[in-house]
């Protein structure tokens, strides 16, 4: 459970410097963006049109290049000047556009996640991008590009403070370390997967074949293989290097990235559902991956942003789940095992719905009962003849699709009734998660945690695995 914010209500211990105050005033991107844009446009122009123009003489190239410089400047300068944003009370106001002026006003209590992203190139200039995710799908994220890094960090703090219901001048919430991913573990775990190992072996065999027979056709198979490895091996490796997770009253904070540094903040109550993925070989290592469904990360950003822990020991993964859903314990939910066909298990208690499935890659899906959107019970013709049915627990689009597949029909209905009943009870006290710092209901009325002896009896690392 998250500790209460110490400086709450009281004036913050270190008095803020005058430059630190981002709650008033108007801000815009770093001025560097103007020359960078002008230079980029000019270079592209010279590279594309230059060879054609040079047939008329170099003077023409120079003349046209100068014209393009001024044209680009005439666009970039005002669009930089008019692209402003600022805080008004607990709303963020963003102005943009030159010909089609736009002005968005965002109630910050609705924000789903805040990211500070620094791609490699922008790190050189000391600028960062601030992304504010809202629950509106793909087009609703606010992206503030090329902010000076200091401003981005302070803006993030202010935005989160407003979302928590505190004044925007509050200091950054203190954080406590949760997990640091050692690089050898990341490297080892990413390598130690069946598809990756097979791809490497295949690559070696193809390389040997190429050397022995000098057959160029072999390279045709190497290219897709290498592309696949780049995507599924090098991609996560570069993305999650130097991964560090910490907990604060403002939620979970993740920092990671080799070339693109990224800092993600997920406020409390924004995680809709969680799944713990354990590929076949990872089970031998005792490590798992934690992915989450969040309403903010829609569409293409879902895949990039849904991992809460890329590689972590299994017990750490379950600890994180307990932190995400305070007042509940995922490992002690009583699971009912289904031994028909593929083994699977599902269980529900008054806080969580847990389902475990997968023969090789074991997936544990956890949905808090107050977060489920709809419940579905379905039975196809064959299932009906056998007296079986499937229960689906729907959450917003994301990696998690919790279901109790192919259960006995009446048992399925009992699951459904229990979920509906627990959901009804759980939803009433926790009315929304906006302004989490100023409401005590979220934590106080969630009901007591499972009794202590139960917790010590069953180590979080083992229980769901035993059910299979």
């Amino acid at each position, binding site marked *: 459970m998250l500790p209460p914010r110490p400086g709450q209500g009281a004036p913050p211990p270190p008095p803020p410097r005058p430059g630190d105050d981002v709650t008033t005033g108007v801000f815009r991107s770093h001025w560097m963006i103007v020359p960078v844009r002008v230079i980029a446009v000019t270079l592209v122009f010279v590279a594309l049109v230059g060879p054609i123009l040079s047939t008329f003489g170099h003077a023409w190239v120079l003349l046209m290049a100068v014209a393009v410089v001024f044209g680009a400047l005439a666009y970039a300068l005002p669009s930089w000047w008019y692209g402003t944003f600022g805080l008004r009370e607990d709303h963020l106001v963003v102005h943009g556009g030159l010909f089609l002026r736009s002005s968005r006003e965002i109630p910050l209590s609705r924000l789903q996640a805040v990211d500070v992203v620094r791609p490699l190139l922008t790190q050189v200039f000391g600028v960062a991008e601030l992304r504010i995710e809202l629950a509106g799908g793909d087009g609703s994220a606010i992206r503030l590009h090329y902010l000076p890094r200091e401003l981005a960090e302070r803006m993030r703090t202010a935005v989160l403070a407003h979302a928590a219901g505190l004044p925007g001048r509050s200091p950054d919430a203190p954080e406590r370390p949760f997990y640091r991913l050692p690089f050898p573990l990341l490297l080892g775990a990413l390598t130690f997967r069946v598809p990756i190992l097979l791809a490497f072996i295949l690559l070696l065999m193809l390389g040997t074949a190429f050397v022995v027979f000098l057959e160029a056709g072999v390279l045709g198979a190497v290219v897709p293989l290498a592309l696949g490895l780049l995507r599924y091996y090098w991609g996560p490796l570069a993305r999650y290097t130097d991964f560090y997770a910490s907990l604060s009253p403002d939620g979970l904070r993740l920092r990671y990235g080799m070339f693109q540094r990224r800092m993600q903040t997920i406020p409390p109550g924004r995680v809709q559902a969680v799944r713990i993925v354990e590929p076949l070989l990872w089970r031998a290592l005792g490590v798992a991956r934690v992915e989450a469904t969040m309403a903010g990360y829609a569409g293409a950003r879902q895949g990039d942003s849904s991992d809460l822990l890329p590689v972590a020991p299994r017990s750490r993964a379950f600890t994180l789940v307990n932190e995400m859903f305070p007042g509940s314990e995922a490992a002690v939910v009583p699971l009912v095992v289904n031994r028909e066909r593929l083994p699977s298990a599902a269980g529900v208690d008054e806080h969580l719905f847990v389902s475990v499935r997968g023969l090789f890659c074991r997936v544990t899906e956890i949905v808090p009962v107050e977060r489920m959107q709809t419940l579905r*019970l379905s039975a196809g013709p064959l299932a009906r003849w056998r007296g079986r049915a499937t229960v689906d627990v729907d959450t917003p689009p994301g990696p998690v699709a919790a279901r109790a597949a192919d259960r006995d*029909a009446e048992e399925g*209905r009992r699951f459904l009734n229990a979920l*509906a009943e627990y959901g009804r009870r759980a939803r009433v006290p926790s009315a929304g*998660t906006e302004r989490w710092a100023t409401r005590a209901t979220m934590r106080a009325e969630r009901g007591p945690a499972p009794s202590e002896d139960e917790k010590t009896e069953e180590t979080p690392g083992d229980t769901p695995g035993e059910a299979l």
Partner: protein
Amino acid sequence: METSEPTPKTEAGPSNPRRSVDVAFAAPEGVPWRRIPTGLAWYLRLESVAVCLAAGAGGGVLALLWGLPMWALGVWLGLWLVAGVALWFLAGSSQRSWGYAEASAELYLSYGVLVRRLVVVPYGRMQVVDVTTNLLEQALGIATVRVRTAASAADTRVVGLPLSEAVQLRDRLAARSESFSTGL
């Protein structure tokens, strides 16, 4: 079958799997299903006839244009005729399979002939409730109430209600979604 070993699953479990499915898909306690009037069956019949006619005629014209043999044309038309007749008779049971129940905190929906479904939507989770009618529905005086939640997987709707009843249902659901609202 040939082993004499007792199979506790079939003996100890519910005697009839079909009955247990019926129990599983029953209405919530104390709230009977509210059924959909027969207008829906006529809607489904007209719709399937129109689709089958269009597909059969379109395919037939193409077959003539391409100069396919007559038996192929006959088979094609026969297939669509059979499909149309089957759908015509299935429309009744499809209409009877629909039901909805407004429990204290959730909307229950039940439908499906081939795949039976039971959908539970808590009122607090409803984001949008709207009523739609297409041209054919308007001609029959029926409407569809569609409920949207933040989960896109479930398509939750109540079809074939008389227009006035649909509007009332929408208003009730909208009011409840407001009073039960708990954010996302």
